[in-house]
């Protein structure tokens, strides 16, 4: 077995090189590397580094998202191989996310969604202007670990509270971690409505989500 350069794989994620990463991952598989190690020591390490750099303000958001894209491209190649070898990736978590009803702001939510995916979360994005009931229905159907609610207006953040209250009333509250975000949300409000987590930006959202699932 040839020695696989995991560092190189990480670097391709960091550089956001979606094309090169595909062939590099294929080569690594052909060289007989353990697909789980390719993820762990290569791709995932790369995306973590990108996230850290972004957190420190060293790189632009576009570089972070390109890293996320490269990660995704690599995973698309590796996933079938993992299945073939009947192995299983460590589950990161599942997320149902959307912008609450009455609100159509989606840029922030889309960025959060992209980063969650890049970090290996299984994300279902319900879109914008999502009625409260739809969140509840999807929760029952998909049983995600995390429910993400985005709201940017003072007139719509109240939906975040309503949804949490419905969860309490229907006995679902302790089945899911509720994360809220968006421009009009702040720490005080999060405490007031009893959400589990809040993040000011997409990168922090991922860190927070991982914390919540520990």
């Amino acid at each position, binding site marked *: 077995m040839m020695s696989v350069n995991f560092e190189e794989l990480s670097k391709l994620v960091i550089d956001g090189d979606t094309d090169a990463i595909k062939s590099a991952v294929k080569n690594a598989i052909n060289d007989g590397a353990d697909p789980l190690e390719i993820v762990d020591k290569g791709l995932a390490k790369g995306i973590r580094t990108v996230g850290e750099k972004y957190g420190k*303000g060293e790189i632009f958001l576009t570089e972070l998202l390109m890293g996320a894209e490269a990660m995704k491209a690599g995973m698309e190649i590796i996933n079938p191989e993992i299945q073939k070898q009947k192995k299983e990736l460590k589950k990161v978590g599942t997320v149902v996310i959307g912008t609450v009803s009455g609100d159509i702001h989606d840029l922030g939510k889309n960025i959060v969604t992209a980063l969650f995916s890049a970090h290996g979360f299984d994300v279902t994005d319900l879109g914008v202007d999502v009625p409260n009931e739809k969140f509840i229905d999807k929760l029952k159907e998909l049983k995600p670990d995390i429910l993400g609610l985005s709201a940017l207006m*003072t*007139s719509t953040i109240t939906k975040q509270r309503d949804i949490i209250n419905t969860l309490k009333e229907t006995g679902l509250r302790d089945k899911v971690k509720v994360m809220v975000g968006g*421009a009009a949300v702040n720490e005080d409000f999060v405490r007031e409505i009893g959400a589990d987590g809040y993040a000011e930006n997409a990168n922090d959202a991922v860190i927070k989500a991982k914390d919540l699932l520990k």
Partner: protein
Amino acid sequence: MRPVLEFFSSDEIYEIHQTSLDILERVGMKFESLEAQQTLKNVGVEVDSKGVARFHSDLVEEYIKMAPRSVVLRGRDPKKDVYLRNDRVAFAAGTGMYVIDGNKARKATYQDCCNWAKLTDAVKNVDFTCEIHSTDMPSELTDRYNFKAMAMNTTKPFVGSALSKDGVLDEIEMAAAIVGGKEELRKRPIWWAGYAAISPLIWSENACTVFKETAPYNIPAFVEGESVVGGTSAVTVASTLAQTNAEALSGIVYNQIIKKGRPCILNLGFTHPMDMKTCLALHGNVVSGIVAAGGNQLARFYGLPSAAWMATDSKVSDAQCGYEKALTGIIPALARSSLIFGMGQAEFTFAVDFEKLIIDEEIVNQMKRVIDGIEVTEETLCLEAIERVGIGGNFLTPKARDTFKFIQKETTELTVGDRNTREKWLEAGGKDIGQKAREKVNEILTTHEPEPLDKDIIKKMDEIIENAKKKVEAKK
């Protein structure tokens, strides 16, 4: 000559215009409202099964020409009407959902919205008032409450948001109550219908509804393309303008189809350059000013009024706040944006700061002097005075009497800033601009009495709000 700042040559303007038309023809614009789709189809616009309308450039040019060159924003008091044209500049208050108090920001209340309107009613340089979002009222009804707050506390024209179809219908009723009925409203359409496209290239159901419901009264339509630059439009200013212009033009075309000759404002001045590191939508960035100025040049090309935003991302009334406001204000002011929003606004578009409004009034005073330009006539050249004063004299004596009439117009004065010597400044208490502005705010809020709104009108508004409340509760 009055200076007009231009960022584009006529060739470049044409390039951008043409790219906007290409976008509307090749990519198209999605209209989420089925009714709007039908309206467009009726005049021959091609609309596909996904609701994407592709416009021929001829059609766009034909309809854009129908929009009038001048738009009047009407106030409760007709003397306060604002005439928007693309060769003069009016100023408007800012908006927000927090109220800044020193280093802190707290959630805005209905009472704050009333006070904000009252303050803007008293401050001379505010031509147009903007709501702040009260957070202590039922969330579905904040638009109606804010409307009432402004109607009661200012006689100047004002704008609030309409959060739903019921919201816009109620606000039309409220506006009609003020002017004495729907027929009167058609003649004096106070209020306006403002909506932005969802970049890139979508007109939402709600936007179409607001435009449609307000059209019969000829209420001015404020049609905006306001992308997050780098996020919902490409990071270059040129592309941002081409795209947001396409968005706004298609909105104006839609408005002209539903009501030929409806007054429309082409606003490309509210874009938010994204901070590519923190991901925040900025406003005090000079790039906002440049986009607004470019947008205004495009609006002038079409003969339409435009708008802009003087803004800051600073959290406090500090040096950053001052310079960002001045820069993001003066750039579009020199480009002759018809209406510059943002007086008193801070912290992106999140907060208002009452004392900042007073400071901004001073900045606006200074800007007005700049845009007045330099008048060159035989009289202002004052050759005779120079001859009379002669070599080594001064121009403060009766010999220069005929130049004195220009003092008011040519010089500037401060209202809260300080231009005195240190001694005199200390004698007067050594106060900084913020302290003086704060005192002025307190004085206005305790002494200013806006022209009261008729009791019956208030009663009517309360009834409208009561009914809306019942409707909302019934839905729950």
